[in-house]
């Protein structure tokens, strides 16, 4: 079977694909994973997805966050040449900060509509997904969840007798954050699929065949 070439075919392929395959695709795009076995990437993707979902379930039963980060919205800066930045979480000693880029969320909404997932990704749902995604990163950074993810992935890089040193898997935290956000926002269609669809539009220069690529002014970048 030949690879899908039009944007519509790409959307259809993404709609049919399983989350763990799409997540494995995302991992494969990282230069650190160049040459990794596909089955291994798929196993890591599945483990990270499971971990993110479990994190969401556990989080639902926990009391509210007493030291919530400062959240702000920016109307521009999310659409950069060759990049769509939906949200970012910055961890500093002075305090954590989350920024949501509404121009990028609007772009993502257009992509979701074009892919046929418009009912899932309303403006409010997208915002909640972005905030949940960054909240997951914050949870992974604080309080030992990052180490739990390492154990879940079980990527042994050094083994000396009974001692096993587990290595970091680049991109796995991202997959876990997507799974967490999906569960928290109650989405039928995973943000992993939305991410893959946005990547397809960047490769095809725009969410719809007649659209120009996102080229607004580059926003503030830390």
């Amino acid at each position, binding site marked *: 079977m030949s690879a899908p070439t039009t944007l519509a075919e790409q959307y259809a392929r993404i709609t049919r694909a399983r989350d763990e395959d799409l997540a494995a695709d995302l991992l494969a795009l990282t230069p650190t994973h160049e040459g990794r076995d596909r089955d291994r990437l798929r196993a890591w993707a599945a483990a990270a997805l499971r971990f993110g979902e479990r994190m969401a379930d556990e989080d639902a039963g926990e009391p509210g966050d007493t030291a919530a980060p400062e959240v702000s919205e920016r109307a521009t800066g999310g659409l*950069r040449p060759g990049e769509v930045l*939906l949200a*970012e979480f*910055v961890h500093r000693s002075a305090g954590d900060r989350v920024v949501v880029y509404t121009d990028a969320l609007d772009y993502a909404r257009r992509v979701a509509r074009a892919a046929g997932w418009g009912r899932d990704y309303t403006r409010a749902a997208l915002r909640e997904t972005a905030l949940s995604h960054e909240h997951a990163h914050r949870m992974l950074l604080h309080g030992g969840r990052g180490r739990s993810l390492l154990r879940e992935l079980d990527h042994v890089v050094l083994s000396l007798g009974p001692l096993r040193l587990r290595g970091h*898997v680049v991109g796995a935290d991202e997959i876990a954050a997507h799974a967490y956000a999906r569960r928290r926002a109650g989405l039928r269609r995973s943000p992993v699929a939305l991410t893959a669809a946005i*990547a397809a539009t960047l490769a095809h220069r725009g969410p719809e065949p007649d659209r120009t690529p996102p080229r607004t002014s580059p926003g503030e970048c*830390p």
Partner: protein
Amino acid sequence: MTAFGILLAMAVGVGLMLTRRLPTAFALVLLSVAIALIAGAPLTGEEGSVLGTVVQEGAPRLAATMVAILLGSWLGTLMSEAGIASTLVRKIVEFGGERPSLVAIGVFVVAILCGSITGSAPAAMLAGVVGIPAMIAVGVTPTVAAGTVLVGIAAGLPLELINWQFLSDAIGVPVSTVQHFQLRMFPIALAGGLAYILVEMRRKGARHTWAVRVPAGSGAGGEETGDKGAGAPPNRRERAAERRRRRGDAPWYALATPLVPIVLALGLEVPIVPSLLAGVVFALVTAVPWREASSTALRTLYRAFDVAAPPIVLFIAIGMLLAAVNLPGAVSALTPVVTAISPSNPWLFVLVFAVLVPLALYRGPMNIFGLGAGVAGVLISGGIYPAPAVLGLMASYGQVLGVSDPTSTQTVWSSQYAGVRPERSMLSTIPYTWAVAVAGLVLTVFLYLL
């Protein structure tokens, strides 16, 4: 009047380079001819002529450097194709991925090793192709990720054998003198680089995003041009990546490749060319299957010519510029002017040249890989400073332009690959590189001017 004419020609040359009306190498060749003519050199003749002395003898003046560049590029290309640099980065990320600062320091060390083998954009690519996205993925901000690779390459510069040969040829001091200064400069550059990473990581914090970038090889940006159909043949980079995929990670003992030339040159006092050749042989023997060794060696050597072409062209032009400013007419005209404005007090030397640091940026007149080579030639031929002091001055400035100059190829490549503007990299790194340059000037005073 002659001095005024030469200075005016130099100002026009800087203008042509700054405004990118002419490539640096072409501007330097024209400038060399102009300086020679203004200095009263005859067009032809055996001694001190434009065509004979400046063009014919000047062009191969830095020949030893050019050979070293080619061999360094060969070793760099081989390290890239054999996956040596990417394996190093991958291991660092696997071991230290939870702590962004640790990963950044690891990539910094890899960049030092790459910078000690080859310079400019090829060194940045060696460390950065995997290192920059890996750093960003673990939470390092894009600006600091690009800056980390750049300060790493600059910290490797004092150990780079090609750079030793260039400074030796351009300034006219023995390689042992260059080695003497650069080995003392290395800890300063190392400390400056580490300070950059630790302070900037603390200032900027760790950053995690939900972001989507153009997929590599999609044809929608990056270095690829035009959309590729499904059946299009793979390009050279994709073929090299495919070969790396088939081979997997480089074996652990191959990871010592970048150390081979340095150990030979420093520890065993082997000359530069055989040291670099030994590095090539070591990489081939340890990282490439035996049956592919000869074809890989030849393929990477040919690719190295592509990589080495821009600096070699530049060094041909610098050789001509050095020949021009050393013509008797130019020396006698420029010496009184340069003597009048050059501080004789050692501490004034530090102060004045510290203030002039920005002149090394944007292909300015203190850029040793441009007009700065001519300035160095005038400072030495006029007897204003001893040659080792000029070496110290230019090596100190080299730390600034190697990291912070937004027109340097490594700065442009690293910044754009990280998704930030080169000017942002300059603003982020210049406080640190400026401090390193001032420390280098102080070192110069202690070593050669007191």
